[in-house]
């Protein structure tokens, strides 16, 4: 560990200690010092920050510098359902990759718009380039059966030993395939997750999602990558060793999560390529965003329930445990706490209610500020720190609501289907 890193860790710890000291110094009334809630808040600080410290340490240690120089055939799979607005840009970004050896397979999953016509006209327009570069460009047209079935149809037609999957509403940077393939340095690496950047189009909601994506990538996945335990390979950009993936899991809402977990269960490693960049559209309307989050949450609960409590490697089990402890459990605590708020109102205990809300908000802002600082260091987006208060509101409304709905739906056995999110020109 370099001196610089050590200094940052020490500074981080100093900030935590100062915060705890300040809580006592200002005595946020003697209320804080004397009530049970203060002890609980300090418990949560220690509980959360030890986790942040663990992740941050792995993050700083994760400096993978060995790259593969092999250039095997790669099959780029693009499943598309009603993507007439954005698929041309996607295809364009795939065709003009710096990687020398690839084929493109577009799977039209029963689109009812002009997706197929757009793809056909693109092939005609770029025919000279495709022929000249000898790129195998395949279009599969099949009835609508969902993304996983579409990916499996593409996989069956693929000639390459490696598959790169991308969403039809996303586009790649010109080096993305080359960069992601650099990470297949040994036979035990089964998949590599790409870096997904959200296009937010000057929308605040979009910007908050961009930060959320960055947090998932730079904080969670990059640290999981240290041990090769990345739990989710994003649908927007991921690369798979064909022999590691039997099939993309059909009938689930998050086929990317399900498939990556199966790869880990086979004993392969999954790592992350932060320099393989893919730009993706995110929902800019609240309704679309909630629908997307409900699907993600439902899918995650489904995958967690199906695959956890299995005997795996210690480190994979540890990641599952973290997912339970820091992913799902705090949300349940928030539910119960939020439901308890009306009780304070009914009982007329307004002072305690006010203190509770203030403590909760200040604690949330503080912990997110630490998280955002780590992420801003990697993403070079320091202005994101200003968005912390907004993020706290976003997380405790949109995300919490989606989690509640997902749970209600799972208990009812009423699965949400793949909804269509409004697309826009980029």
């Amino acid at each position, binding site marked *: 560990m370099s001196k610089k890193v050590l200094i940052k860790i020490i500074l981080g710890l100093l900030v935590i200690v100062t915060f705890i000291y300040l809580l006592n110094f200002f005595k946020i009334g003697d209320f804080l010092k004397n009530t049970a809630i203060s002890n609980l808040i300090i418990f949560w600080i220690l509980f959360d920050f030890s986790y942040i410290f663990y992740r941050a340490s792995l993050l700083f240690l994760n400096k993978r510098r060995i790259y593969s120089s092999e250039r095997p055939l790669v099959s780029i799979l693009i499943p598309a359902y009603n993507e007439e607005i954005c698929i041309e840009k996607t295809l364009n970004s795939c065709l003009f990759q710096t990687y020398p050896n690839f084929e493109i397979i577009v799977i039209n999953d029963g689109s009812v718009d002009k997706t197929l016509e757009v793809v056909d006209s693109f092939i005609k327009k770029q025919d000279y380039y495709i022929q000249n570069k000898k790129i195998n460009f395949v279009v599969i047209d099949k009835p609508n059966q969902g993304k996983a079935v579409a990916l499996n149809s593409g996989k069956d037609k693929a000639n390459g030993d490696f598959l790169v999957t991308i969403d039809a509403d996303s586009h790649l940077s010109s080096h993305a395939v080359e960069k992601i393939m650099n990470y297949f340095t040994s036979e035990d690496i089964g998949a590599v997750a790409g870096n997904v950047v959200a296009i937010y189009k000057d929308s605040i909601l979009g910007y908050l999602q961009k930060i959320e994506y960055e947090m998932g990538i730079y904080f969670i996945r990059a640290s999981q990558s240290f041990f090769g335990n990345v739990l989710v390979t994003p649908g927007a950009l991921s690369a798979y060793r064909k022999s590691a993936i039997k099939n993309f899991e059909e009938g689930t809402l998050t086929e990317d999560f399900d498939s990556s977990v199966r790869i880990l269960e086979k004993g392969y490693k999954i790592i992350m390529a932060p320099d393989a960049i893919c730009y993706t559209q995110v929902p800019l309307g609240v309704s679309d965003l909630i*629908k997307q989050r409900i699907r993600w949450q439902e899918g995650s609960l489904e995958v967690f329930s*199906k695959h956890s*409590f299995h005997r795996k490697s210690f480190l994979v089990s540890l990641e599952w445990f973290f997912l339970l402890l820091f992913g799902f459990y705090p949300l*349940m605590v928030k539910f119960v706490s939020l439901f308890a708020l009306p009780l304070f109102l009914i009982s007329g205990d307004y002072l305690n209610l006010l203190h509770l809300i203030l403590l909760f908000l200040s604690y949330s802002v503080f912990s997110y500020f630490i998280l955002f600082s780590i992420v801003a260091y990697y993403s070079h987006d320091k202005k994101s720190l200003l968005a912390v208060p907004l993020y706290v509101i976003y997380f405790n409304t949109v995300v919490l609501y989606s989690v509640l709905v997902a749970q209600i739906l799972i208990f009812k056995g009423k699965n949400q289907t793949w909804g269509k999110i409004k697309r826009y020109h980029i």
Partner: protein
Amino acid sequence: MGKNQKIPYLKDVLFYFCKVAILSLVLSYLVSKTSFYNQSLVFILVVFSAFSFNVFFIILIILSYIISFYLTTFTLGDSSLLLIYSFSIFLNTIFMFIYFKFKYKLKEK
């Protein structure tokens, strides 16, 4: 929020809130008649049991209530009580996943 932006599944959520309200009244009354009464634990029980009235799930949730209730008898003060409530939510979360796991296994069969 835009003109056409409706909050999805709002009816389901409101129905869930109603269940929480009714259950908290009924269960608080019923459990207070026994020697196992703890208002906060009853409230946690209500939030979870309002999700589903499946017999297996209810058994798990009640089991969690009983374990947490016995733990409260060994407490030293308010702060440890709050930690036990946190533990109770954790236990319920684990039981919820055990229930989901059985549900998916049955579905797969």
